[in-house]
């Protein structure tokens, strides 16, 4: 199969649906396994930080969530380009179905960061570079959600969201840079995120496991949501009716 064919097929809901059955459960199972392992490892077996003590264990929740929050948005931006430039049908489904997941991950990153901030910084919230840009990321997600809700026509909503997602992705680095630079200039380094380059393997290994697990969760969400969305979208098509009559029967 040439790349061209693959590309074309990826844009075809039916093909995607028929191919992706096994992927979905694989990713979901992998995600649960990795995340449970990583969390248990991080909670009980990783050594405490010599400065922060056990509150450090929040890192195993916080960093994967923060990474996903950004990755999902980048994925939305990519889908936006696909939709606007190549009018790829699947990209619209991605745009429609991934916003909620990304927003929840952002919320988790914010929440776990805030919870971590209380014991380490002595306050739930402080406006520094990363916190601010994460908060703004949450607003970007809200914007996508609200825009889609506000436009009744599905097709138009898809393109409008695509445009917004692309504009947002272009802006994210600028936002990040601006706030990071601004607070380090004015606030001093008191609240700088702890960076531990010399982190021992026993500390970063569970983090790695969780990050990979988080990406699996992302993939599982992507595939599962696309699959249901495809069924709903193509409900008039013959193959979906066959599916409902046959395999889909409980």
């Amino acid at each position, binding site marked *: 199969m040439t790349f061209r064919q693959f590309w074309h097929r990826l844009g075809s809901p039916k093909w995607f649906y028929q191919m992706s059955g096994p992927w979905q459960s694989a990713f*979901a199972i992998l995600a*649960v396994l990795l*995340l449970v392992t990583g*969390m248990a490892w991080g*909670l*009980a*077996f*990783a*050594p*405490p930080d010599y400065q922060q*003590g*056990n*509150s450090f*264990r*929040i890192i195993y*929740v*916080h960093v994967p*969530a923060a990474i996903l929050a950004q990755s999902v948005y980048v994925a939305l931006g990519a889908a936006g380009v696909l939709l606007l430039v190549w009018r790829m049908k699947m990209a619209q489904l991605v745009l429609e179905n991934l916003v909620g*997941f990304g927003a*929840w991950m952002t919320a*988790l990153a914010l*929440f*776990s960061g805030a*919870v*971590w901030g*209380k*014991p380490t910084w002595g306050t739930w919230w402080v406006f520094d570079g990363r916190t601010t840009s994460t908060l703004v990321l949450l607003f970007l997600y809200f914007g996508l959600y609200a825009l889609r809700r506000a436009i009744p026509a599905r097709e138009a909503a898809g393109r409008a969201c695509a445009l917004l997602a692309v504009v947002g992705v272009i802006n994210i680095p600028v936002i990040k840079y601006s706030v990071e630079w601004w607070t380090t200039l004015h606030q001093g380094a008191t609240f700088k995120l702890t960076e531990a380059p010399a982190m021992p393997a026993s500390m970063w290994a569970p983090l790695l496991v969780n990050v990979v697990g988080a990406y699996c*969760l992302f993939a*599982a*969400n992507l595939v*599962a*949501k696309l*699959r*249901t969305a495809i*069924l*709903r979208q193509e*409900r*008039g*098509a*013959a193959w*979906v*009716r066959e*599916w*409902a*009559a046959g395999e*889909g*029967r*409980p």
Partner: protein
Amino acid sequence: MMFEDWQAFIAMGGHGLYVWMAYSAAVALLIANLTGLGVERCRTRRHLQAQLRSRTEEGLDASEAP
């Protein structure tokens, strides 16, 4: 295991509240997310089947046939 007993595990050296808040939020989100996926799938399936049934009862609606 980095902790002597369960008590210490729960207490997390005094940071138990924060650590457990963060982890429980994460676990809750994970569970909600995965069950959400399953529920959505079931609902779609039921919906499609209901649609299929009403179609076969009424006879196939010509205007909606692909």
